């Protein structure tokens, strides 16, 4: 009886908070920002070359002039909107608009070649909508208890969570693990530039006053993911070929629905739980959902040949993951991926620290942003289906017009932050570095995530050591930090152990041969 009463009270509380959120999200100004974010997100997803990370970074300085809720609503819309748009290029051009749509190419493009582009695009849009909406419901249900639990976290727990986040990003990096770890440490070093928060001593400022406040996240991200990406594309001479097919029948047939319903449900679940984990959740979840469908299918041979489940599963997974990845950001204050680390920067710039106190101190921001996601998902469905011919036209815009425009927006964005050319120089340096990183097979994602989490890691590690009298064993005595660090060690070991075992086998073979 007592339990039922408690549950009822909590349900009423949540519904009341949601209604409060809708009263904010449905204000004309916020509706406009939600629409703008969703539209720009779809555009960014459609256009290969510039992903949501670069776009959020470019738009970040513009949001300084907006209200906090409006700014976050717009940037969040851009992030999950890119997941919707990413499928369009995967299906029509066989080039993923962003990383999470890579796997959609396999069956989506085949379907387009078979004259079923409409069904593939329609299923991608509906799947994204269903998964996105389910993801928001999950976010609403999980966020409150998790943020209550996070109130008990101390510096030990926060340090352990940050380490776990960085470990996942390293583990999920595409190339060499060693290089990813190096990028992570480079990010930590760069995050230390500026005034020390405890002793107020300037660190690595090179005598430049502009560096006393540290390096801003926006020019770093704009440089690495905006300018760097454009520079890499400028050296390419190949031309993208658009598939010449008439796009019709965007509404999936009854047979399409019946074939895809399981894939949609499983993709949504896989995406939701993987999205909560730190490190590129939406990218991994799309691959995992595709693999799972192929394994469960009665006709696995159809996968890669134009199976609609091969579109439904990854598209629902990446959208569900994109939404659930807001859970660690909003409740723990730990961004689980690079796009959300820039969003984390946006919160800080607006004077709000995401984390367990967000719901208590800024309920308008939390519930406003959450409710806007319901609205945004509806907008994206409405935007995506009728506007597909427009997105196809957008794909025809030649790169030679597009890239100069992106560079100009980056320049304006960097300048407008502090009305200073110093940030432009920072952006150019990181742009050139971003280009060279790609040439030398280094990844920017671990660098940016550790750059954002660096100040938190520095502060929490030093506070933890101060309070525990310098005992590292305290990290393994406290249950939450012990489990989290144990998980981080396991993740890192799982990526290093195959390498060690390979080396041991070679060593054994050599010694056997010698004997």
């Amino acid at each position, binding site marked *: 009886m007592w339990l039922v009463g408690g549950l009822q009270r909590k349900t009423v509380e949540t519904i009341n908070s949601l209604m409060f959120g809708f009263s904010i999200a449905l204000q004309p100004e916020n509706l406009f920002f939600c629409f703008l974010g969703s539209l720009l997100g779809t555009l960014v997803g459609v256009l290969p070359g510039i992903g949501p990370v670069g776009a959020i970074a470019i738009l970040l300085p513009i949001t300084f002039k907006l209200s906090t809720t409006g700014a976050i609503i717009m940037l969040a819309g851009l992030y999950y909107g890119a997941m919707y748009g990413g499928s369009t290029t995967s299906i029509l051009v066989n080039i993923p608009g962003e990383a999470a749509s890579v796997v959609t190419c396999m069956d989506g493009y085949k379907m387009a070649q078979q004259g079923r582009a409409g069904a593939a695009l329609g299923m991608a849009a509906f799947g994204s909508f269903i998964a996105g909406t389910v993801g928001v419901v999950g976010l609403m249900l999980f966020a409150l208890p998790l943020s209550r639990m996070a109130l008990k976290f101390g510096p030990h727990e926060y340090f352990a969570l940050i380490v776990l986040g960085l470990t996942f990003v390293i583990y999920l990096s595409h190339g060499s693990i060693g290089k990813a770890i190096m990028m992570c440490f480079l990010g930590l*070093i760069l995050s230390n530039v500026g005034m020390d928060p405890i002793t107020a001593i300037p660190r690595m400022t090179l005598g430049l006053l502009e560096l006393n406040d540290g390096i801003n996240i926006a020019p770093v991200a704009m440089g690495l993911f905006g300018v760097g990406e454009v520079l890499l594309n400028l050296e390419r001479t190949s031309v993208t070929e658009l598939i010449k097919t008439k796009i019709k029948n965007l509404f999936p047939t009854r047979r399409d629905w019946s074939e895809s319903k399981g894939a949609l449900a499983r993709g949504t679940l896989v995406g939701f739980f993987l999205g909560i984990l730190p490190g590129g959740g939406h990218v991994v979840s799309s691959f995992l959902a595709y693999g799972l469908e192929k394994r469960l299918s009665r006709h696995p041979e159809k996968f890669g040949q134009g199976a609609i489940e091969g579109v439904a599963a990854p598209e629902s997974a990446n959208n569900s993951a994109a939404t659930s990845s807001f859970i660690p950001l909003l409740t723990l204050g730990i961004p689980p991926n690079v796009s959300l680390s820039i969003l984390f920067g946006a919160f800080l710039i607006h004077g709000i620290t995401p984390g367990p106190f967000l719901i208590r101190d800024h309920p308008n921001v939390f519930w406003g942003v959450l409710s806007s996601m319901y609205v945004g998902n509806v907008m994206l469905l409405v935007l995506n289906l009728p506007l597909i011919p427009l997105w196809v036209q957008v794909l025809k815009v030649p790169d030679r017009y597009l890239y100069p425009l992106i560079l*100009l927006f980056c320049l304006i964005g960097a300048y*407008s932050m502090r009305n200073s*050319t110093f940030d432009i120089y920072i952006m150019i340096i990181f742009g050139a570095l971003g280009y060279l990183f790609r040439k030398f097979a280094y990844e920017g994602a671990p660098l940016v995530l550790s750059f954002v989490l*660096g100040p938190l890691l520095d502060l929490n590690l030093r506070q933890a050591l101060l309070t525990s009298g310098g005992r590292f064993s305290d990290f393994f005595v406290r249950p939450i930090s012990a489990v989290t660090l144990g998980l981080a060690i396991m993740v890192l070991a799982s990526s290093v152990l195959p390498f060690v075992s390979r080396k041991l086998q070679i060593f054994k073979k050599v010694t056997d041969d010698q004997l």
Partner: protein
Amino acid sequence: MNQHDFVSGLVWLSFSISVAVEGITLGIGPFNNPGAGFVLFWSSLFLAVLSFCQVIRSVRPRAGGTLILHSFQDVAWINVLLSIMALVVYSALLAKAGFIVISFLFMVFLYWLGRIKLWVAATSALVTIAVAYSIFHFALLVQFPRGLCGW
């Protein structure tokens, strides 16, 4: 030898050594009272160890014969170089020449680099600047430098 890993490893190694020295100068402090250079020093130490390993691995015969030159073959790297130079010149002249003038020249140059006819490039640049100025200056109230000409 894998030139990519060798050269980049050496760059990171020298960078991490200089950061470690900076960390020591700032003060690492004991574990029970870590100083301002604590995280800086330990991060640079780990980076130094990893870059040293990378340099060693890159010179082994099994590392392959990857040359840096290979990365820049068959690509229009000159476009990249010219674009970076254009960005630097833009930043250097922004305050003196003013936003409208320097942005117009910058856009014309980039469009021209993309093999667009000069008159089309100039017209496109003009339209782009007009739209960008309207959005950022009038709608978002960004204060751009006016330069010597006053616009």
